[in-house]
Structures are given as C-alpha cells and as structure tokens.
C-alpha cells in the first residue's frame, strides 16, 4: 500500500485516521474470529480445517501490520471496544455460527470468500461515497486489495475437493433427538 497524498485539512486528517482505525479494527476482528474458529475446530479434532483457519488468521494479521506500518502509529492504536458497523460486526468478520464440527476446507474457504467480498464492497462503497478525497483514495486502494484476495481464494477453492453430499452425516452423532 503506498502512502496516499497528504491531507488538505485537519478534518480530512481526522477522517483519514478514523477510516484507517476502522480498517485496522476490521482486521483485528477477522484475526480473532478465524483464531476462535481454529481453536474450536482443533478442540473437535478437525485439524485440517483448524490449520486453514489459523492460516487465514495469520494472513489477516499481515494486513493489520501493514495498516500499522502505513499509519506509523507510535504504538498500537487505542481503539474503541466496538465500532458501529452496518451489520452486527465488521464486514470482514464471519458470524460465530458459520462453522460446523465436520466442515471441510472448502467450507472454510467459502466463509473466507464471503468475508472478502463483503470487505471489498465496504471499501468500494466508501470510495464511491462522499468521503474526503484522501479517504476515498485509500478506500479504492483497499477495495482493489480485497478484490485480489477474492480472486486468490477463488483460485484456492479450485484446489480443494468440493464436499460430497452428506458431508455432515456423523455415524456417531452427538444428537440423539432427530
């Protein structure tokens, strides 16, 4: 990410800092959620998917580090506990109930794809909106990055087997009440 042109006013500067704080928060939420999924799947001995979620969490960590480097914050930015998003959580955060203990790598990538598409749309909307020029430029750049991630995940999905019908059938199920 190249550093966009300098702000033209303190208000623009503030809007840009807020935008980047939100972007950073989005990444933190995604990092945490993928790590939670990895822990949950690991606990349930679905190691392959756990490993994949761990990797996704690490990839998001790289994005977060890039934002920190870009902003040159002297220390970790002090963020509010929660931003008000359009949805209940950040656009790049998968919902808690997206996972299943028998899920396969393809499912995990489907989740990641949905998150990246949402993130891309989030940035595109800002870039097309009425934000200060500096924010719009940064949003456009981030939307392009998210589009790259979407393409990468789509390619990744071609390399893993699609789940067969009945993938969630467990010969020794926890539920006895069907």
């Amino acid at each position, binding site marked *: 990410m190249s550093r966009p042109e300098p702000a033209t006013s303190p208000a623009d*500067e*503030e809007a*840009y*800092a*807020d935008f*980047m*704080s939100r972007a950073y928060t989005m990444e933190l939420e995604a990092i*945490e959620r993928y790590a*939670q*999924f990895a*822990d*949950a*799947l*690991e*606990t*349930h001995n*679905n190691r392959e998917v756990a490993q994949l979620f761990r990797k996704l969490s690490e990839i998001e960590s790289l994005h977060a580090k890039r934002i920190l480097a870009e*902003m*040159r*914050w*002297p*220390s970790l*930015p*002090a*963020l*509010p*506990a*929660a931003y008000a998003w359009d949805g*209940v*959580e950040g656009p790049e955060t998968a*919902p*808690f*109930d*997206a*996972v*299943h*203990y028998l*899920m396969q790598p393809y499912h995990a990538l489907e989740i990641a794809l949905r998150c990246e598409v949402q993130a891309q749309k989030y940035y595109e909307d800002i870039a097309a909106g009425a934000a200060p020029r500096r924010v719009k430029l940064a949003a456009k750049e981030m939307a392009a990055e998210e589009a790259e991630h979407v393409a990468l995940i789509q390619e990744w999905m071609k390399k893993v087997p699609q789940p067969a019908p009945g993938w969630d059938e467990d010969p020794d199920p*926890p*539920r*006895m*009440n*069907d």
Partner: protein
Amino acid sequence: MNAPLASPALAAKDFKSDYKPVWCPGCGDYSVLTAVTKALAMLNLRPENVAVVSGIGCSSRIPAYTTCYGFHGVHGRSLPAATGLKVARPDLTVLVASGDGDGYSIGGNHFLHACRRNVDLTYIVMDNHVYGMTKGQPSPTTEPDWSSKLAPRGTGVREFHPLVIALASGANFIARGFSGDPNGVAGLIAEAVRHPGFSFVEVLSPCVTFRPEQRAWKEAARPAPVAATDDPARAARRLMTDDGFNIGVLYKGNRPAYAGLPAAATHSTADLERGFQLQEH
C-alpha cells in the same frame, strides 16, 4: 502521524485465559464469552477485580475461559455463591453465568430470591431452550410443541418467561441480547454492570447441535422498538406481550441495591466460630 483514539486500558483479549472452549463449533456461547471480555475491557476493569461465578452446563464453563477469579459451582447454585461473595467482597465486580436449565430449573428458586434481594450482581443467562450438555432434553424455556426423541410430540408445557419472572421478583435491570451480535451483548453487559442492584441479561444463544433451527434467530432478533422504562407496570406489559426477540435494555429500575447489614450487627469469624463450639459439661 495520526492521534490514536481513546480506549480502554486493557483489551478484551487480556480477559481471555489460555484454556480453549470445548463448546460445539458454531455455539452462541463463544459469542457471549467474547461479549463478556469486551464488556470488561469497556468498563476499564482489571481481571483481579472481577469474579465470574457459574453453576453447571455448557454456559457455566465460562469462568475457566477468563483470566478473572472464577468459581464453577454446584448445579443451579451459582447465585447463592455469587451473593455470598458479593456481600463479603463488595469491592469486586461479580458476574454470574448460567443457562436456561441451570438458571431457571435447578436454580429457579435462587433466581427469584436473587432478584428480590437485589444484591449488586450481573446475571447473564445463555438461553438456548434446551439442555445441551446432557444431550438435548427440553428445558424450562423449550417450546411446548418441540418434538424430539426425548420428548415425543413435545412436553405440552408452556414455557417459563424469565424476564417477566425477573421483573415480578424485583430485578433492578432487565435486558435481552442475541449472541449473533457480540458487540451489542457487550454493551448490554457493560450497562448491566454499571446499573446498581441485581441486573439480569438474558442472551439468546443458539444451540447449533440440538436446536440447529435456532440459526434462524438471527432473522427474528431485532432492537426493541421502545426505550427502556423505569415503570414496572409498563415493563410488565411490554415483557408479557413481546415475542421473545426484542433486543436491548427493557427495564431499568430505581430500587437501591442491597446494602448489607449495619456494622453493629456484623460479627467476626472468631465470634461466629465461638457460637458453634460445643459446651463441655
């Protein structure tokens, strides 16, 4: 360089222990754990000043997953333990975690009296309308027509209405959250902790294993159409007539929290022990 925004001294992750939850992947309780840790960070608390007390059940595993003091107690008895702790150590922030089985059935009686006593506690009940840990028996909040192998054609018994019961019993703060919105639940918990007296936060927390149909709750849950009231009669009418999916703070009462006994009436531990000593004849 851009100035950072204002923030809590500790982050939510500082309230999470190294123990990994054993809940089923997709369980709403993961979200509640996240919400609890976010709320504690929002409140600028420190783990050593917070105690999390629980009973038995999936939800009651929460204390181990936090870095706060924890007490994983007896089935249905989280509230008596928490009450004793808060009365003895009023300086601590005491959260109580429970589920619909532990809290409304085995611990139902304690629920009524905890509301009545109005000790300054925050009671978080993760309600999934089923006994998940013991493989899917109907709980007090299970719908009467929910049919399963363990309850063919359903129980036929009407559900317990925890929020109405809490109001009638004297709870000073009543809210309902949905685990699909962890940030929203964090806000409710933080507000509940700040409110004096007994605060009750019911969190709809789907059981994806035994009640997979509860994934649809995300379509049903929506913000309550009206602001919280401090009028119990108005709150009662609202709670009696809502469909169980209005989310937010629903009642904020003005009752003073239980303040303990007057100093003159307290006794030292030694005094109490002397009272129980057998007399030699």
